[in-house]
C-alpha cells in the first residue's frame, strides 16, 4: 500500500517536473542553448497568473492562455534581441552566462514589483482529494499531471504535425540546409524560444496553484529542468515527460527508502551518472555531439 502511494505521489510530482522542464528541453535541443533563465521565466508565469487571479478573480487555469501569449512575445524578443546577439558575437557557452545575467535581473525585478514575500494561488478546488482504498490522491497535483500531459501533447502535435513544427525540427538538425530552402533561421529560433517561454509560463501558472512560490525559487526550477532533460533526453516532449516522471519517482522513492532529506542529492547524482553513461538521455536525439 505504501509502495502504491509512493509510486502515485512520484508520478504526480513527476508531472510537475515534466511540465516545468519542457521549454528548457526544446531550447537545448533546437538552439543548443542552456537557458539559465528558464526558472525565472517559470516564475514570471506564476507571478503573472497570480496577478491576474488576484486582481480579476479569474480562475488561474483560464488565465493560462493570456499568460502564454505574453511570455511568447517576451521569449521571441529575448532570443532575437539578446541571446542571438550573444551567440553570434561570442559562443554557445557565453549564452549560458547571458541567460544567467538575465535570470539575476528578472529575479531582482520580481522582488521589486511583487515584494519578496511568498505568494500562493488558492482557487476553491485547491484542497480537494480522493481516497480510494488506502491510497490518497491529491487532486490538485493530479490535475497538474493532467495539464502537463495535455500541454506536452499539444507541443508534440505542434512539432510533429504542423508546418512550423517541421521547420523548427529541420532548422535544428541542419541549419544551413534549412536556410538554403528559404527558412529564416533567426525567426525560427526566436519562435522556438517564444514557444518554450510560453510553455514555461504555463507550467509556472500550474505550479502556482500547487506550491507557494517566491523569486528565489527560480534557481531550483532551472536545476530541476536540467535533471529532467538529461534524464529523459533533449529536444523531445516525450523525453521531458519521461524524464519528469522518472525524476518524480526517484524523488519519492528516495524519500521513502533512504530518508526525506535525500531526494535532492539523489536527483543530482542521477544527473551526473546519466551524463557519464548516456548524455543524450533515454529518449533524446542529441543534435550536437556530446563526446
Amino acid at each position: 500500500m505504501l509502495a502504491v502511494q509512493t509510486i502515485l505521489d512520484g508520478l504526480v510530482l513527476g508531472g510537475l517536473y515534466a511540465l516545468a522542464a519542457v521549454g528548457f528541453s526544446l531550447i537545448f535541443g533546437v538552439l543548443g542553448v542552456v537557458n539559465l533563465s528558464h526558472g525565472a521565466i517559470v516564475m514570471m508565469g506564476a507571478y503573472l497568473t497570480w496577478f491576474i487571479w488576484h486582481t480579476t478573480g479569474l480562475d488561474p487555469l483560464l488565465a493560462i492562455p493570456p499568460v502564454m501569449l505574453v511570455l511568447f512575445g517576451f521569449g521571441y524578443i529575448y532570443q532575437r534581441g539578446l541571446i542571438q546577439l550573444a551567440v553570434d558575437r561570442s559562443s554557445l557557452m557565453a549564452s549560458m552566462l547571458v541567460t544567467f545575467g538575465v535570470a539575476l535581473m528578472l529575479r531582482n525585478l520580481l522582488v521589486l514589483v511583487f515584494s519578496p514575500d511568498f505568494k500562493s494561488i488558492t482557487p476553491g478546488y485547491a484542497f480537494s482529494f480522493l481516497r480510494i482504498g488506502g491510497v490518497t490522491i491529491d487532486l490538485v497535483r493530479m490535475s497538474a499531471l493532467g495539464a502537463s500531459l495535455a500541454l506536452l501533447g499539444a507541443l508534440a502535435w505542434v512539432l510533429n504535425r504542423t508546418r512550423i513544427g517541421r521547420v523548427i525540427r529541420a532548422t535544428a538538425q541542419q541549419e544551413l540546409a534549412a536556410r538554403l530552402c528559404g527558412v529564416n533561421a533567426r525567426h525560427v529560433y526566436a519562435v522556438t524560444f517564444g514557444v518554450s517561454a510560453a510553455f514555461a509560463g504555463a507550467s509556472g501558472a500550474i505550479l502556482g496553484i500547487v506550491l507557494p512560490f517566491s523569486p528565489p525559487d527560480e534557481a531550483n526550477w532551472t536545476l530541476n529542468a536540467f535533471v529532467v532533460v538529461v534524464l529523459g533526453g533533449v529536444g523531445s516532449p516525450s523525453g521531458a515527460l519521461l524524464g519528469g516522471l522518472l525524476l518524480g519517482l526517484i524523488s519519492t522513492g528516495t524519500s521513502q527508502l533512504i530518508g526525506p532529506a535525500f531526494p535532492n542529492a539523489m536527483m543530482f547524482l542521477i544527473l551526473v551518472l546519466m551524463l557519464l553513461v548516456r548524455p543524450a538521455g533515454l529518449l533524446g536525439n542529441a543534435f550536437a555531439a556530446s563526446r
Partner: protein
Amino acid sequence: MPRIARRTLMQLAGGTALALPALHTARAQARKLVFGGSIPLSGGAAETGLNVNNGYATAVKFLNEQGGVDIAGTKYQLELKLFDDASDPSRATTLIQRLLDDRVDFFLGSFGSNIVLPTAAITERAERPMVQAGGGSDQIFTQGNRYVFGIFPRATRQFQSTVAFFKTLNPQPKTFSVIATNDAFSKTFAAGIVKDCQAAGYQMIENYLLPEQISDASSVLSSIRAKTPDMLLCAMHDQNSLLVARQMIATGTNVGLLFQGLGPQLASYREALGKHATGIFYSTYWDPRTTWKDPFFESAGKFAEYYGKNFTRPIAYHVAAGAACIITYVKAMQAARSIDPVKVRDALAATDLETLYGRIRFTADGDGDAVAMGPSVGQVLKGAGEVVYPAGGKTAELLWPVPAWDKKG
C-alpha cells in the same frame, strides 16, 4: 596702505560677524548617532530582512521626529547606515568592516545565522556592540562573545513556553512527531522542541528531516497518516510551512494539534489556506494588541499605528523586534549616560526594561532571556492570528480540540 588695511579689516570683521551665528548654530544642531549594519534585502532571507529593516527605520524616524534622543544632556539625531548583504557572508563582512573604518560604533544585526556569526565576530573583535533580531541559533551565543546581544532566546530554548502551554490542554495529547528542514535555525529549534517535549513527558514518535527547500512532503505525510501522532510540530521557515500545511489538507492528513513555528503569523499564509487555517498553532513574539508600555511609543498599539502611517507592508513581529533593537540601544545609552561603546555594552548587558516588544532582558551569553522573552502561543481563529497563551496576553479564547480539515467552518 591704510585704506587697504581698513578694507581688509572691515572684511574680516564682517566675515567674523557672519560666521559667529553659524558657529553658534552648529553647536546647537543635534549631533548624529549612527547605527550601522547589513540586511538581506535580496536573496532567500529578503522577506524577513525587509521587515526587520522597516522596524529599524520606523524607530529611527519616530525618534528623530520627536527631536532626537537626549543622552546625558546632549541631543542626538539617529542615523541608519544599512546596506544589502544579499544573504552573502563575504559581502556582509567586507561592508561591516567599511562601517568600522568609518568609525561607526553601534551595529544592528542581519538575518540568518550564517551572516550574523561572521559579522558578529568582526564587531566583537573591534569591541563594538551589536544588537540583533535575526540570529537565533545557539552557535552565535556560545562563542564567548561579550558584545553581541540577541532579541530572541537561543533556538534550543525557544520552545519552553510552548510546552508549558501544551500541559494546560484538556484533553491532553500524548505523542508527537517533529518535522524540520536542513538549516541551522530549524535544526536547533527542532532539537529544543524534542528536548523540552520529552522532558515534559510526551512521547516522540518520529523526527523527520526534510531538505532546506521542499517541493514535496508526500512521503513524510504518508508516514504521519500511518503513525498518527497527537501533535505535529514543524520547525521550518514560512514558505515551507505553507507547503506542508497545504499538502496536509490536500491529502487529508489530520493531526490533533498542528504547530508551525514560522508561517501562520503572515497574512499571506492565512489567506492562502482560508478557512483551513483555523486552529493552527504558532509562535508569536509580539502582537500589536498586547498591553506593553513603551518609553517612547507609549504602547504596542501606538507603534503599530505609527508604522501603518509610514509603510504599506503589513506589520509582522520582526518589525517590532527591529524597533526594539533601537529602543534597547537608546535606553542603554541613557542609562550609561554616554555613547562610549564599552560603557554602552555594559549597560546593554544590564538591560531590564519594558518596551513595546515586551520585557527585554539578556542572559549572560547575550541571547534573550528564555522566560522574559520567550514566545507566546498563537492560534489562527476566524482568519486572524490571536494570542491564546499565556493568559496575561490573551486576545481570544483557545479553540480546543481543533476540528479536522474538512470540518472547519
